[in-house]
């Protein structure tokens, strides 16, 4: 393993910022720390960079324990959320800074700066000062500056969160392309779950200083280990087991999916809005799915389809996502409808612990 984080803990006065974090990252991997603000993801990143010191545990990079290596000798590149581009230096000087610290010969500095600026599409901006650059351009300089030193590890702390939405989409692809091309191991911090799913090889979802789950984007999205992960990544409909039974049109089918030995009142039943389909009422009901009934509360046109807010069991509001071909297909508010979800897309969580409860085998 290229990066090993072992039993890492960090406490700030009155706050346990990180609790017994264990993560391993492979060489060349694009690894993301995902979580809400205050979950400890930035703290972890800054400990890896050496700006904070952990209270407990170790960090190894390429087999070497770096706990006692001062930050300026770690050879770890970092991209900051607010760019942190030196305002008193030109683009060129900013990028050359790390090489100058390493006493790289002048002519080599020039070639390497030119190369990396070309890579981030900032050639021609060498003599500009940061105040003449847009946010996106400044972040490109920030990235170039971190990459030019050929770091053994690249850390990115929400590098795109200060950019506007469109630019954010372009930049994240560019960052991924560059990382793939250079093969640099990258640790990326974000609170944007969609960004994390798109960009990462693997993701660690964090909450309250504890790693909840480490896995591929698919695993995180489709096979969350607890309720927190399931609702933080993507949107999720939640209903109590009893409510689900009451609003189901196929009680027997639903009952058969329940985890073995679990009573309805002990669990939460969850499924994603995008995994639902509205039943037109014609044809044969599918036996791999569970049917629910509800009343349309709102129908919101979102371009690619319609988002319905459905009232089930009198007061519970669920969200359904539906594609439509014609405007006439939009179901009016107040109408009663039936919708179904594939059994394998239904997730169960323990009502008290939030832990995942597996369905019976064979479903």
């Amino acid at each position, binding site marked *: 393993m290229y990066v090993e984080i072992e039993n890492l803990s960090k406490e700030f006065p009155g706050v346990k910022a990180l609790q017994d974090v264990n993560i391993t990252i492979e060489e060349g991997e694009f690894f993301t720390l995902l979580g809400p603000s205050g979950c400890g993801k930035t703290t972890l990143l800054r400990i890896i*960079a*050496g*700006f904070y010191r952990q209270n407990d545990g170790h960090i190894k990079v390429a087999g070497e324990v770096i706990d006692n290596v001062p*930050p*300026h000798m*770690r050879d770890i590149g970092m991209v*900051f959320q607010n760019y942190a581009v030196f305002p008193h230096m030109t683009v060129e000087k900013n990028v050359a*800074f790390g090489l100058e610290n390493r006493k790289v010969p002048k002519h080599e500095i020039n070639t390497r700066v030119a190369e990396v600026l070309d890579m981030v599409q900032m050639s021609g901006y060498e003599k500009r000062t940061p105040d003449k650059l847009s946010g996106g351009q400044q972040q490109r300089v920030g990235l170039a500056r971190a990459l030019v030193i050929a770091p053994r590890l690249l850390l990115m702390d929400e590098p795109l969160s200060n950019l506007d939405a469109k630019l954010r989409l372009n930049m994240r692809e560019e960052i991924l392309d560059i990382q793939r091309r250079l093969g640099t191991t990258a640790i990326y911090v974000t609170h944007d779950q969609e960004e994390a799913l798109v960009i990462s090889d693997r993701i660690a979802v964090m909450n309250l200083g504890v790693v909840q789950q480490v896995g591929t984007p698919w695993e995180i999205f489709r096979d969350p280990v607890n309720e927190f992960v399931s609702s933080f990544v993507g949107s999720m409909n939640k209903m109590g087991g009893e409510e689900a039974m009451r609003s189901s049109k196929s009680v027997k089918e639903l009952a058969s999916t329940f985890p073995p030995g679990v009573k309805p009142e002990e669990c939460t039943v969850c499924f994603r809005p995008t995994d639902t389909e509205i039943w037109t009422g014609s044809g044969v009901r599918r036996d791999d799915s569970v049917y629910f009934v509800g009343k349309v509360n709102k129908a919101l046109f979102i371009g690619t389809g319609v988002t319905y807010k459905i009232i089930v069991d009198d007061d519970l509001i669920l969200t359904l996502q539906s594609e439509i071909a014609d405007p006439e297909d939009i179901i009016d508010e107040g109408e009663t409808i039936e919708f179904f979800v594939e059994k394998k897309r239904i997730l169960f969580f323990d009502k008290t612990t939030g832990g995942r409860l597996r369905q019976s085998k064979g479903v």
Partner: protein
Amino acid sequence: MKNWLRRDGFWNLITLMGFVIIGLLVIYPLFNILMQSFISLETDKIGLGNYVTFFTTPYYLKSLLNSLVVSLGGTLGAVILGVPLAFFTTRYKIFGTPLLSSLATLALLTPPFLGAYSWIVMLGRNGFLTNAFAKIGVNLPTIYGAFGIILVYALQYYPFVFLLTSNGLQTIDRSLEEAASNMGATPFKRFYKVTMPLVTPSITSGALMVFMLSLANFGTPQIIGGRYRVLPTMAYNMYTSEISKRPAMASTISIILVLVAAIGIFLQKFAARRRKYSSVLLYRSQTVKLTGASNFFAHFISYLIVALSTLPMGVVVVFAFKKTKGPVFVDGYGLDSFRQVSREVPTAIANSFIYSIVALVFIVVIGTLLGFIVTRRQTVVNKILDTLLMTPYIVPGTVMGIGLIIAFNKPPIILYGTALIVIISYFIRRLPYSVRSASSILQQIDPDLEDAGISLGASPARAFRKVAMPLMIPGIVSGAVMSWITSINELSASILLYVGNTTTMPIRIYAWILGGYFGPAAALATILLVTTGVALFLLNVFGRGKVDIV
């Protein structure tokens, strides 16, 4: 808090130095004053006897009331002058606003006692305006006493209110006022329901600053006050009359003065906490071009205020070139007064420059280092240091002077009579401002910048030198110029600390004014004014043009 910095012995040494400086130069002298104040003048007994004397003797008690009267009066006057000027220049197109601003700043930075002196030249017993009006049979009311002091304070310190209020007005987002109009508020209602409440914290901050400065000022009441004694002049006069005995009453008055100042600073902190309404500034307010009578009115008021505050400087300069016969001005102009200055007090000029420059070096270097540790290394110890570093704020110059003498005219350290003690008084009085200014500069520099430098392989020291330092320098330079200007104009502490051969320009001017030698006083004052003006001008040209008076 970063570990690699905590290991750095250098910064711990700076913390220690901070404590030693404050302990030796502020706490120790104040402690000495406090001790003296508890030893009764009459009975030599330890107790509150002196304080009882103070509060039961009308002669003493009156100085406290007088201090409050002139400080509040000066503050009120400064608000009356500063607020309209701020409104006019930020909301309406006033021709020559940058010039008005510069002149107001210059007026602010000249020592107030020069203003006092100048008003005496105009409206004093033998003032040229008094005489002119007397000729046409009008007897002007006397300038001596409370009225004169309040007049000088208002005209001297209104720029604080003006500059802070202008800043406050400029940072009110236009959309807030637009929203008020949109919801149907008349322009008048919009002004007092939205604009005024938003800018009130700025006005309050400025007003409290004026109050503090007025309370601490010594030169003005001493020159124009006549028999009207305020706390600083009372302390000074008690000290000089008690010189052969123990400075019991001077100490008692000093402590009372510090307590009043402490209450003032407490109120200021309280107001500052509510100073900023956080709102996003997207659209700056626009200046509107007025027409007709209202345009004339706005211009007239703006120029009148600035002209009144600049007038004393003009009078000083003009009278420097007037011929004199002893204490009396006669017709005709010439360089006689300047010749007298260069003949009689070249040492005072040299001393002023040497002392202020030596003090400045220490103010800048030590202030910057201390500013760095209290901002970037926020340990419990450094937080305590940060609070202690603010104590000189509440110690008026007169008190500082008395404290330094009592502390350092006896073993183990005897400094009285040396140039060093004058330099120390400059240094310690200005140090808190220097620390504050370095700290606020640092707060504007994102710590991520230094971290970025470090992650790119620069050692902490190199990151400070290559990243933080270059970004701090413009702010440090402007702070340094301010420190130098205040030091070279310092009077209230140095008047107590100087001896014959350590006299400075302000002391010499003050002595000449008291002796009635208005000619050479005006000439020397002109030299001081020009020096101050040149320093400000250079700062405007080479600095970013940003004068940070607060």
